């Protein structure tokens, strides 16, 4: 019995591979936050007046908000004055017009991360907006997308080029008043992605962004806004890696999605932030507000996430189902090990008629970690004929970790049909022995069983992302046979 447990733990103790730092010189603000820092930030980015105004409003509101304390996760208080709110590679005062103009050291960085931009040119259409610390470096494939009228550019560029869209939609899904970290993000966000898909357009390729936190004590405040106009479709991939660090690093992003009539947005995340070492030291704090608004009739927003990193994860990608016949989906695999803490889940708010939501959440906990699912399904009195199906499964590996489920189900209309199921299990000795007796090593057996456990979620990922997810979970994916 002891031997099998050891083998399970060995599988999970793979060293964090992406830990390294780039030596490029960076323009960095001194730590500290006040209105001047915000003005300077807005100035450095050359933002129009309305943007600065919005940041300041958010900042002033943030000052009035108390620091949140969540009962389920524990961490030392964050000193917001000790963080530097801007960091950019020096040469980006003039943006490069092609890959040839990008600092080779930077490109090398991306190669190390496994996303060689040059190779990607040959890949069947993945446009990469590579974000290096706080400023976007290169945006490829703009031309191809421009043909279709798809706008995919850094947030900072969108502020200049598309101010009308920005004014109309920014903060409309996650207003700066929403929560403490959303307010902070609204005040000091550095960059991120902006996507607009015009009416009737099916975006010809998957859009993706890579993140990286490099400089010590640099908070990462990314902001993403995706707008899918009537009858459009887009699949967006977000994958992050980060280097090893000793001090905790804060990551407080905001993602807003808007789907109009008949539009569909598929947002997939493979998150691999540094989880802290075996003793729980260091590691990223990932406090993210992600929300999608299904505003149009028959619109659809799907969130798919594989979370294996971060010291602390606090995120609830949500969907507001306002349009009649709209659909919200949430597929998640959250793995915690060692001293990690995860409190994640989703909120499905049913407002319109005939709305549907599906939640499949798989939590895997090991080590002395703590994994909690917190979900809300709220069927409001206007939501006639709403449907929800939720399945929450927890897999516990080892006897020192914990898994909790806190699903809140609030139903205010009698025509609603809500079904919630949850189960907790472990990889049993019998299952492991069965696999071993067939010649499969216990490491491979654990991989196989974990894969089977997560199958429903993994099959929702776009193909190339699924490969990275697979590496992260340490298993071989099934899709090929049959």
């Amino acid at each position, binding site marked *: 019995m002891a031997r099998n447990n050891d083998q399970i733990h060995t599988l999970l103790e793979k060293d964090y591979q992406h830990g390294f730092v780039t030596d490029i010189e960076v323009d960095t603000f001194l730590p500290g936050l006040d209105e001047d820092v915000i003005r300077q930030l807005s100035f450095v980015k050359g933002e129009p007046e309305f943007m600065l105004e919005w940041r300041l409003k958010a900042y002033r509101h943030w000052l009035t908000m108390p620091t949140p304390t969540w009962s389920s996760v524990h961490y030392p208080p964050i000193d917001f004055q000790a963080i530097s709110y801007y960091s950019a590679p020096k040469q980006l005062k003039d943006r490069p017009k092609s890959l040839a103009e990008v600092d080779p050291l930077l490109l090398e960085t991306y190669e190390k991360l496994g996303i060689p931009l040059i190779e990607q040119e040959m890949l069947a259409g993945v446009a990469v907006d590579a974000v290096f610390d706080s400023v976007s470096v290169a945006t490829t494939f703009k031309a191809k997308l421009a043909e279709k009228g798809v706008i995919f550019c850094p947030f900072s560029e969108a502020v200049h080029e598309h101010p009308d869209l920005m004014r109309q939609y920014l903060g409309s899904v996650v207003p700066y008043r929403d929560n403490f970290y959303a307010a902070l993000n609204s005040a000091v966000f550095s960059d991120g992605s902006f996507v607009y898909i015009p009416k009737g357009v099916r975006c010809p390729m998957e859009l993706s962004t890579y993140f990286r936190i490099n400089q010590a004590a640099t908070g990462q405040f990314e902001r993403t806004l995706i707008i899918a106009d009537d009858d459009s479709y887009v699949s967006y991939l977000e994958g992050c890696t980060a280097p090893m660090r000793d001090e905790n690093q804060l990551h407080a992003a905001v993602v807003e999605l808007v789907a109009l009539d008949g539009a569909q947005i598929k947002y997939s995340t493979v998150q691999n932030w540094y989880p802290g070492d075996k003793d729980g030291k260091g590691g990223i704090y990932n406090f993210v507000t992600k929300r999608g608004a299904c505003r149009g009739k028959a619109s659809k927003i799907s969130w798919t996430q594989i979370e294996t990193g971060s010291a602390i994860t606090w995120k609830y990608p949500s969907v507001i189902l306002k349009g009649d016949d709209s659909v919200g989906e949430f597929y998640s695999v959250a793995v915690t090990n060692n001293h990690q803490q995860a409190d994640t889940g989703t909120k499905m708010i049913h407002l319109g008629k005939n709305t549907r939501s599906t939640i499949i959440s798989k939590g895997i906990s090991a080590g002395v970690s703590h994994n909690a699912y917190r979900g809300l399904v709220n069927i409001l009195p206007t939501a006639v004929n709403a449907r929800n199906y939720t399945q929450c499964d927890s897999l*516990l590996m080892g*006897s020192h970790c914990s898994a909790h489920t*806190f699903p*809140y189900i609030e*139903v205010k209309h009698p025509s609603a049909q809500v079904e*919630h*199921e949850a189960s907790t299990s472990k990889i049993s000795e019998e299952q492991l022995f069965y696999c071993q007796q067939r010649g499969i090593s216990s490491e491979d057996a654990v991989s196989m069983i974990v894969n089977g456990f997560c199958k429903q979620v993994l099959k929702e990922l776009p193909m190339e992302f699924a490969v990275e997810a697979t590496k992260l979970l340490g298993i071989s994916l099934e899709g090929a046979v049959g």
Partner: protein
Amino acid sequence: MSEFVAFYEAQAKDAFSDIPWLLDIQQKALNDFLRLGFPNKHQEDWKYTSLAPFLKNSFAVDKSKSIVKERSNIPFAAGKTIHFCNGQLVEETLAAIPLPNGVLVNSLRKACVQHKDKLQPFLTSFFPARDGVHALNTAMLDQGLFIYVPADVLLDEPIVISHAQDKSHQASFIRHVVILEPGSRATVIEDYQGDDLVEYHTNTMTTIHLSASSHLTHYKIQREGKLSHHLGQLSAVLATGSQLDSHSFSIGGQLVRSDTSIHFQEPNASCLMNGIYAPTGKQHMDHHTEVIHNAPDCHSEQDYKGVLNGQSRAVFNGRVIVAKGAYHTRAEQQNKNLLLSTGTEVDTKPQLEIFADDVSCTHGATVGQLDEEALFYLATRGIGRADASRYLVQAFVGEN
């Protein structure tokens, strides 16, 4: 709110016993009550239930003897039922109960004097006061029953306790203590009812202590008056090999809150919790259950069904906690709700907190409505909608 806290503080002091050890318990509980106050919506466990309707007026304990004229009796137990009238035990009804040797069914007051050694350990707070409601019940300890079944005694006849109230703005605080010694078996039925036109308050708590291999079947019928508030609690501690079957049926009361807390302290025990709640009109029913697996190889099963009509509201929160080391725990929980009309609301939160890995825990919750297809089918066979609905509802709760 604080004026009512002061009022109940005075009520509690009025109920202070002259038995020193009991007084000590009451005083400690009163301190807890003053510290905790009445629960409000900012506390997670009371998020969906407000005590505001109760805290609009004061409800005083009335120690005078009374007779509740309109009392509906449980047919098979006629003449063998213990009566509480307006919160006070009717002593004479105790005498009519046939009991085999060694079985004790005494008033709590009497037991505090005559059976201190058996009773005291179970009155001292086994668990800290969960909230102000719990603490106040302990501070007001006075009325209730002490039920004691000695080792290996198998009681076939159920012990039936009927509580009825008909006095306006009156409160009753009841505490029943049920102790089963090793290998014994018993059935206890608690029935709560009252006048539909009178606003009264019930704060009742039953604590159950099951020794090794004992078995208790417990029924609670809550059919209180339509204007009343009923705050009921059931706590049970199970020893090795013991079993508790708990059935509750809730249709009365304007504001109802039921807290059930089961503690598995030793291995190989099991418990079944069955509940049906059927609010209508503007009733509000909140059922909170908590099962704590502190020992291995225990089995808990919960099945709660709600049928909501009118503009009623129901809340269900089922918490299952499996502590580290409680391996081979099997915990199943199910909550299903039928909403029969517009304006109803249900808030359900099945909750799992697992700290051990070799366990099997499942929970499920559903909210739905009567199946139109089924209603149509029954209609084509000549069964009208109202009757058909009744059949389907019966089938729904029939499993319990």
